């Protein structure tokens, strides 16, 4: 199983391609070394032959034919020259002197170089297989052949060939072993990941990929996949809680409505009663629909690509508009709205959503702002980016509840009996997340101050990765 996977693995295929490429390069290099060495050696040999030939010519010029014969015979008894071949024949190619019996039939011309396989050795002579030779016609019609055994050269060539062949063999074996072991290793790690994935598909999100603790790239991958699984598990958990809350928040009014309708069906009522019953049912339905729409809206905002409707907008202007809209409401409840949003502070965002989110924050501050009726709304431009802050003088939110209030349907104990569906701050969180803004809840001593820290519009282009905004959004929804 693992073997077939190894053989089919892309790592192995890649390893083989590399082996072939490297082999070609190495063989090319070694071949060149062999070729140039052989050439060098044969040049040296040719030069030695030329030198010896010059000596022979000199002996001939000094002592004529007899002098030459004497020189040759002296050479034949010299052990240093026993790999040399000498032959002097007369003009009808009959033997005169030397260690070859007969003139090779191939060499009939006036002279030159040749590499020949020689036969017809004198009994005493060494018997080289091939020899490198030069031959010439002397002025008196005699032919002279001088050669040297190439066995050394051939032996060298043979050794190089064997060396190259065994190196190549060793190289291929090692490369194949390395390729297979690397592939086996990666296939084994991938198989571990695959097994975990299958396990997750079968039994749930509890499984994690085992780490080897080597800190290598495979551990890095496994670690990332594991964190991804953690994140998914968290999201699923959050989702489940939201579904539970939805079920609760929708079932309650639905039960009320169902009971009411059932009673109406069983009882005889007058027209006035029916009317008020239908009216109550419609307003209950509207309440459900409002909750449902808010929930859907939050999900849609969370799922949205943030680039689509984003423009460069002035945060101060939006704040002034929100405050203007809420001015009469604040006045009616005897709340003082203080605004600090004079200068232009631009953010990249969606005006509708920001307006909605800021409205929610101001609305919350007016509703839950306690008895000391003063709310301040401020926009500031900091080095890190624009900051929007909304502070009230109310009872605030206990530190341990601050993270929970952004969750859907979460309501503080003291405000359970007031109107609202517990989705306002979730919407704010979703809008902030879409804009890459952080939500900070601080003590306004006394009261609550909610700050939205936007990313610097110059540094954070709206198309930048979602990575930066997501962690906190999820982190804050963590139960």
């Amino acid at each position, binding site marked *: 199983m693992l073997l077939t996977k190894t053989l089919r693995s892309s790592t192995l295929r890649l390893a083989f391609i590399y082996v072939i490429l490297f082999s070609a390069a190495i063989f090319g290099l070694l071949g060149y070394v062999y070729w140039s060495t052989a050439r060098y050696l044969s040049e040296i040999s040719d030069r030695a032959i030329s030198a010896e030939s010059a000596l022979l010519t000199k002996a001939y010029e000094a002592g004529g034919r007899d002098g030459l014969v004497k020189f040759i015979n002296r050479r034949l008894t010299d052990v240093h020259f026993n790999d040399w071949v000498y032959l002097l024949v007369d003009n009808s190619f009959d033997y005169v002197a030397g260690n070859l019996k007969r003139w090779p039939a191939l060499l009939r011309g006036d002279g030159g170089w040749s590499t020949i396989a020689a036969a017809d050795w004198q009994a005493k002579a060494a018997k080289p297989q091939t020899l490198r030779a030069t031959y010439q016609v002397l002025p008196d019609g005699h032919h002279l052949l001088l050669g040297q055994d190439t066995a050394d050269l051939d032996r060298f060539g043979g050794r190089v060939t064997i060396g190259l062949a065994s190196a190549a063999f060793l190289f291929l074996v090692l490369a194949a072993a390395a390729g297979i072991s690397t592939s086996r290793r990666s296939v084994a790690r991938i198989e571990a990941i695959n097994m975990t994935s299958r396990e997750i598909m079968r039994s749930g999100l509890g499984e994690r990929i085992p780490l080897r603790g080597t800190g290598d790239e495979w551990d890095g991958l496994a670690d990332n996949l594991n964190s991804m699984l953690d994140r998914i598990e968290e999201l699923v958990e959050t989702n489940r809680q939201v579904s539970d809350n939805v079920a609760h928040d929708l079932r309650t009014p639905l039960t009320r409505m169902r009971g009411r309708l059932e009673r109406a069906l069983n009882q005889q009522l007058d027209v006035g009663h029916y009317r008020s019953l239908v009216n109550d049912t419609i307003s209950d339905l509207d309440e459900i629909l*409002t909750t449902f729409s808010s929930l*859907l809206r939050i999900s849609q905002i969370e799922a949205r690509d943030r680039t689509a409707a984003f423009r460069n907008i002035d945060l101060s202007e939006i704040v002034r508009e929100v405050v203007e809209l809420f001015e*009469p409401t604040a006045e009616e409840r005897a709340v003082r709205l203080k605004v600090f949003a004079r200068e232009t502070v631009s953010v990249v965002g969606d005006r509708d959503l920001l307006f909605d989110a800021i*409205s929610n924050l101001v*609305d919350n501050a007016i509703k839950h702002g306690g008895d000391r009726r003063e709310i301040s709304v401020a926009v500031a431009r900091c080095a890190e980016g624009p900051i929007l802050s909304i502070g009230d003088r109310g009872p605030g939110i206990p530190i341990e509840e601050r993270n929970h209030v952004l969750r859907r349907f979460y309501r503080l104990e003291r405000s359970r009996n007031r109107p609202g569906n517990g989705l306002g701050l979730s919407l704010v969180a979703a809008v902030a997340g879409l804009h890459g803004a952080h939500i900070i809840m601080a003590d306004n001593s006394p009261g609550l101050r909610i700050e939205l820290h936007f990313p610097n519009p110059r540094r954070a282009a709206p198309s930048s990765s979602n990575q930066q905004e997501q962690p906190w959004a999820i982190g804050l929804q963590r139960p």
Partner: protein
Amino acid sequence: MAGRARHVLVIEDDAETGEQLVDCLKSSGYDVDLAVDGEDGLRRALAADYIVMTVDRMLPRIDGIEIIRRLRAEGIVTPALILSALGEVDDRVRGLRAGGDDYLVKPFAFREMLARVDALARRSATMVKETMLRIGDLEIDLLARVARRRGREIELLPREFRLLAYLARNGGQAVSRTMLLQHVWDLHFDPTTNVIDVYVGRIRRKIDSGQDYPLIHTIRGIGFCLRAPD
């Protein structure tokens, strides 16, 4: 506005919703044609002259947005009210508001739907640019951006003036809170609080207090209406 001038096309694939829409529009005096799918709707819209049409966002075969796109390509400018179940964050529907069309998120109150069809029908019927609006003894000068009642100038903030002018343009007809938010603030979401009511309340105090009769009326379940007594 009689005869064909009150002709409305409803493109809706859900039979019961379609019937309800037709009933509702008929009872308020419109002639109504019902198309049950996108192709039928497109054919009818191309063939006859309607003052308004309501188009379901998601239809079998041809999608609602596509119908409007093709009609506009043919030069037919009948204003459309898109009925969308996808919510306000639906970017494609948001894109259409620039073209003068309107949209309503399903489910909706029929009175809200009627208010919007009325507004679209009126825009389609009267394209004349008016500069002076009169409702009872209230005068609104759109050029000078001044409102007077019985000749006395009323001090209004710019936004308050815009709101009053919008109510006046729809004189006699109900305008919903969402419509106000759309046209006066250029915002597209459903206000979940009564903040608009309180805002209108302040304008009402400026307009109506100390006068012979009230002009701004709250219409229960919908919104507001600027109307002089008969």
